[in-house]
């Protein structure tokens, strides 16, 4: 089942055209890694696919299912506890009970930190709070912008397992990362070098 498709999408930023003629279709069970040098337009592409950018985006993008978009900015309030941050998440897609949220926080090694202000946690731990949302949302399509940033080795392994679990249960994931491929047999690469506008 196709969850997202893009046809002849071109993206402009300011006066500059970044990408052109991007065609892709993301079906359930697929993992896509978006590759490309800094500034080539990876984040802009994800924002456009998520539906956040309309100006400067041409072509047609169709979203057939709900999606979860995780940006560089974690959408986490430093003054709030991890528990409250997830319960009152601005995307309003978390219906879990506090007990379920605590469970998810334990899964990302944040057990015991549920009630501390996020601002007192380390950068990696803050990243984990944002990633705990992956366990709580039921959106089939995940668009993750640099999800491995700031995570330690164990955290990266956990996230890898999380993504594998999601696609094996019918979801799809598209992520950007400069790390070498982690899902060798499963993943497909979208190298933006082929679509750079000339």
């Amino acid at each position, binding site marked *: 089942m196709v969850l997202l498709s893009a046809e002849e999408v071109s993206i402009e930023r300011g006066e500059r055209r970044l990408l052109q003629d991007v065609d892709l279709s993301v079906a359930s069970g697929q993992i896509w890694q978006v590759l490309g040098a800094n500034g080539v337009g990876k984040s802009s592409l994800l924002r456009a696919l998520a539906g*956040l950018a309309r100006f400067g985006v041409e072509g047609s993008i169709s979203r057939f299912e709900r999606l979860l978009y995780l940006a560089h900015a974690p959408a986490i*309030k430093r003054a709030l506890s991890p528990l409250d941050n997830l319960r009152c998440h601005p995307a309003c897609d978390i219906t879990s009970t506090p007990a379920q949220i605590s469970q998810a926080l334990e899964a990302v090694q944040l057990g015991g930190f549920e009630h501390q202000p996020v601002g007192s946690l380390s950068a990696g731990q803050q990243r984990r709070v944002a990633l705990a949302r992956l366990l709580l949302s039921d959106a089939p399509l995940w668009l993750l912008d640099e999800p491995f940033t700031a995570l330690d080795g164990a955290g990266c392994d956990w996230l890898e397992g999380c993504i594998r679990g999601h696609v094996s249960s019918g979801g799809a994931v598209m992520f950007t990362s400069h790390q070498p491929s982690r899902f060798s047999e499963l993943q497909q690469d979208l190298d933006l070098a082929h679509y750079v506008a000339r």
Partner: protein
Amino acid sequence: MSPVDRPSLSLLTAFGRQFRRHGQALMASLADVANPLLFFFMVVTLFPLGLGPDPLQLAAMAPGILWVVALLASLMVSARMFASDFEDGSLEQMALASHPLSVLALGEVAAHWLATGCLLALVSPLFAMMLGLPSQGLGVLMLSLLLGTLCLTLIGAVGSALTVSIRRGGLLLSLLIIPLNVPVLIFGTAAVTEAVMGRDPSTWLTLMGALAAAMLALAPLAVGAALRISLDS
């Protein structure tokens, strides 16, 4: 073209959670809440020093002074209303929610108003007494400020939403919203003056109420649209 919309939370719950999120964040940074009050207090203390200690003159100018200071205090805080949400990525997530962005943003605005405008209106009689405002004006001052700060906060929310993506948008924001604040200032000052003179202020209060109701209905739509534009650039 559009994703399959299946809101999992009811609209009211979503509104309540945004209200709570923003309220908690505000409560945690007490400086943000105390700032407008402190500003109000300082200006009200300075006016008698500048104008001279004649109580009659002060009392005559008090409605105008109090209202102008309230307007400036509101302007000061509304500029940053959506700034932190823009910076930490919360706005993007709000825009992706299956609920209308205007309703979620209204939840934030409501929390913001309670912590700033409403609080300011509730303590305003204290400041009014410092300026020697006759006691028959105190109730009307508080009521007019309650309605007035609601208008000012909603107008400020539209301005803040429009300028949130602009670096140093403060000046632009002031230019945008001060003209819109003028009717509120006129109605509010007139209501308090009438009450001090012993006349019936209800005409002005009614006008102000009508303005607040209209703003409450229209401003969220403008805020939602403005936030989407700001996110898009």
